[in-house]
């Protein structure tokens, strides 16, 4: 029979555990092989742990799972170069087989037991848990073991206390306390409650002694020395328990504090994400609003001109009114600009690959500080002007271009010679330095202007008596402001000045609401009567100028005009009447730039602030402080881009209220002018460089 030899073999193998690995391994291998040879007919399982698994759940354990388990367990017991530890717990194949059989009685009796997923969960988790690292216990774990905590916190830890309390329970004559308590709680008297209980029997103390009136309760009970000692011991133990509980609670509360701070950090991150979503929403709104402009197909004149129905109408109207006007010119004059739209521009796909907040292009052909710039569209035509400092020749006054605006191929400039010039950039392309994207048409350097009839300059508008410092045009209407403290409105089709708005007059005749304050206005009037010249506060590099541009900024829409002037006032004019119906006071220095949209007016001034005014109320909705005077700005629903006397261009995020600076590969002297369209920004600075950024 196989039984006696196997028994003997088992004894051998149990001895093998104590022998060195090498020798036992070979004997084991032989024995293992023999046992396997005998046992295999009875079982078809692969290895010990999988046998356990398949025993537990023969139905659920598919061959696949068994194989997986086999491969994972065999990894840990590879070959015979196993550690002592694994040697210790790896019984021989034979013993396992018998152990399995030995479990049969248990299994037969426990036949009603159903295997649950928990069993499998446990078994599966074991191998994974064994891999885990076991650090040294520290902190609470070292102080209070789990078992100690258990004994301190289970209900039976209160046993000692209740027992002691019971020993102090004194049998007194019936006091009816329960009934008192029930009444106090508002419960009805229990009718079954036998209030007239055997009171008489309690009239005497426990030992038959009659209890006298004022005797203390404690005197009636005698605990005895043993009991008291026992109580003392118990109390010590309870105190120890309390210490344990206190430690546990401290540990738990510090854990919770850590959790809370973690969650708090999460919440702040979510807040930031919310702000980003708000920004994106504003961006989408802008996009959506600009779509009507783009909805209608391209016009026959040029691929980049996209018009709406009104444009087409205006164009056709001008053509019909002025049959002698060339169609292209009329188109130029009538076209609604897409440029001032706030939505996304058409950019080359490579623009997306540009790193943000980096000046990726520098245009270096100017020799003096950039005085003004504008472009028709991203990667389109850029017009920039500079003041040539080292000017030769006997010209006492520098003929400088002070303001420019470009719409498609129309460019209007205003210069210090008090003349306004219209240019057709299509004609200028051939004569200047290249007309490819980013090409510059340098103007105003040394007073070389083309003749009106030929060359790029189409028309010259004269009327102002001092340098034209600010202009804005749309369709066929142009508005210019000059240092003679007037604002003129021109009709571009005829070239005539339609309206002159006198700021001095507006100062001395303030709108109805503030008419009572004519006294201070008179004082202001006197202050600005003379030629306007203020010293600007120093810029970041310490330099400063005499600022003489009385009208710092202009913009109009329909017949609503907004001007920013050197008396630090932002005025809202009605171009039908020529009256300033509203004056926004708030700045304390000359206003250098303005822009408005449907909701806000944004103005920057030499007082180092940018103010955002609410159109409806006329009040200040926001104010951005800078360290140096603000010379140029542009804004949309999400941001305000400003040149604030520093080398870097400032961007103020209107949703997160954060200020950031663009300075990578930026200017080396204060940036003075900026313009952007969608994600393409152009800035010009005193270092005579024009830098193009991707934002």
């Amino acid at each position, binding site marked *: *029979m*196989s*039984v006696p030899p*196997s*028994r003997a073999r*088992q004894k051998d193998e149990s001895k093998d555990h104590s022998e060195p690995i090498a020798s036992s391994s070979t004997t084991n291998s032989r024995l293992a092989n023999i046992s396997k040879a005998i046992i295999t007919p009875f079982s078809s399982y692969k290895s*010990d*742990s999988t046998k*356990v698994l398949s025993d537990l759940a023969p139905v659920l354990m598919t061959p696949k799972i068994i194989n997986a388990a086999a491969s994972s367990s065999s990894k840990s017991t590879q070959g015979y170069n196993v550690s002592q*530890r694994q040697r*210790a*717990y790896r*019984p021989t194949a034979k*013993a396992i*087989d*018998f*152990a*399995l*059989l*030995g*479990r*049969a*009685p*248990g299994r037969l009796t*426990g036949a009603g*037991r159903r295997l*649950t997923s*928990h*069993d499998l*969960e*446990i*078994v599966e*988790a*074991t191998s994974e*848990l*064994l891999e*885990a*690292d*076991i*650090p040294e*216990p*520290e*902190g*609470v*774990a*070292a102080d209070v*073991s*789990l*078992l*100690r*905590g*258990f004994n301190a*916190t*289970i*209900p*039976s830890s209160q046993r000692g206390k209740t027992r002691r309390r019971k020993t102090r329970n004194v049998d007194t004559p019936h006091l009816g306390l329960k009934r008192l308590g029930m009444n106090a709680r508002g419960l009805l008297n229990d009718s079954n409650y036998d209030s007239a209980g055997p009171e008489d029997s309690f009239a005497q103390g426990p030992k038959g002694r009659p209890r006298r009136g004022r005797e203390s309760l404690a005197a009636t009970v005698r605990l005895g020395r043993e009991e008291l000692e026992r109580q003392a011991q118990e109390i010590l133990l309870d105190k120890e328990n309390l210490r344990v509980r206190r430690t*546990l609670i401290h540990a*738990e509360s510090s854990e*919770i504090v850590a*959790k809370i701070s973690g969650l708090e950090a999460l919440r702040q991150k979510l807040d930031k994400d919310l702000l980003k979503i708000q920004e994106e929403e504003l961006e989408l709104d802008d996009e959506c609003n600009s779509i009507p402009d783009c909805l209608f197909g391209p016009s026959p004149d040029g691929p980049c001109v996209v018009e709406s129905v009104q444009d087409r109408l205006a164009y056709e109207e001008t053509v019909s009114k002025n049959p002698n006007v060339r169609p292209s010119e009329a188109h130029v004059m009538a076209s609604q600009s897409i440029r001032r739209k706030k939505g996304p521009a058409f950019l080359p796909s490579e623009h997306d690959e540009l790193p943000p907040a980096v000046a990726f292009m520098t245009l270096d052909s100017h020799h003096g500080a950039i005085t003004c710039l504008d472009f028709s569209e991203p990667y389109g035509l850029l017009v920039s002007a500079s003041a040539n400092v080292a000017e030769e020749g006997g010209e006492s006054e520098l003929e400088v271009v002070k303001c420019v605006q470009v719409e498609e191929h129309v460019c209007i400039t205003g210069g210090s010679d008090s003349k306004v010039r219209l240019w057709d950039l299509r004609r200028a392309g051939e004569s200047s330095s290249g007309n490819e994207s980013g090409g510059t048409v340098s103007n105003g350097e040394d007073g070389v202007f083309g003749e009106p009839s030929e060359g790029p300059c189409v028309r010259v508008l004269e009327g102002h008596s001092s340098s034209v410092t600010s202009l804005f045009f749309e369709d066929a209407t142009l508005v210019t402001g000059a240092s003679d403290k007037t604002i003129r409105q021109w009709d571009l089709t005829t070239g005539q000045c339609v309206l002159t708005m006198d700021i001095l007059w507006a100062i001395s005749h303030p709108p109805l609401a503030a008419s009572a304050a004519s006294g201070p206005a008179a004082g202001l009037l006197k202050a600005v009567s003379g030629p306007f010249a203020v010293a600007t506060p120093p810029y970041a590099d310490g330099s400063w100028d005499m600022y003489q541009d009385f009208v710092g900024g202009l913009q109009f829409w329909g017949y609503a005009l907004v001007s920013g002037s050197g008396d630090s006032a932002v005025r809202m004019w009605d171009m039908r009447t020529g009256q300033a119906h509203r004056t926004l006071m708030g700045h304390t220095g000359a206003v250098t730039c303005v822009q408005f949209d449907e909701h806000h007016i944004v103005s920057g001034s030499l007082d180092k602030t940018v103010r955002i005014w609410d159109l409806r109320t006329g009040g200040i909705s926001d104010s951005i402080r800078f360290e140096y005077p603000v010379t140029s700005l542009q804004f949309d629903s999400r941001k305000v881009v400003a040149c604030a006397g520093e080398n870097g261009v400032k961007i103020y995020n209107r949703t997160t209220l954060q200020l950031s600076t663009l300075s990578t590969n930026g200017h080396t002297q204060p940036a003075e002018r900026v313009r952007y369209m969608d994600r393409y920004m152009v800035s010009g600075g005193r270092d005579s460089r024009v830098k193009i950024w991707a934002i």
Partner: protein
Amino acid sequence: MPTEVPYAADAEISLTYDELEVLRLQYEKEVTQAHISMQTKFNFAWGLVKSPKREHQVEGVRLFQDIYRSEPTRRRECLYYLALGHYKMGNYEDARKFNALLLEKEPTNLQAQSLNALISESVAKEGYIGMALAGGAAAIGTLVLAAIIRRARK
């Protein structure tokens, strides 16, 4: 300092039904609060493991595995409790593995050593039972075979 753990005999003493209920309620209350303290979990798990019912033991071991996973500082003690739990359930292999890990870390732990001995005893006992069964089955098989051969010869 060796970890303080109870002897295996302690695991045989089960809590009363009420006590276990109290622990269970405490645990479930904390579950609803979404913050389960280590001590409640341990209390409940230990109470379950001590119980004689198999499903309680299974649940207890599962909870101990949770503790093992989530609290690295408590792992050493958990090794012992897991070994104990598996021992009670009859998974001698797992019990041995865990116990061996613990002994590696703390060779002087008395309770772990005693648990080791207990596990070996139980494994051996099962082995003997198995052998007896196998022997009995073989004996019966031989008898049956002999009867068949005899009948065949007749």
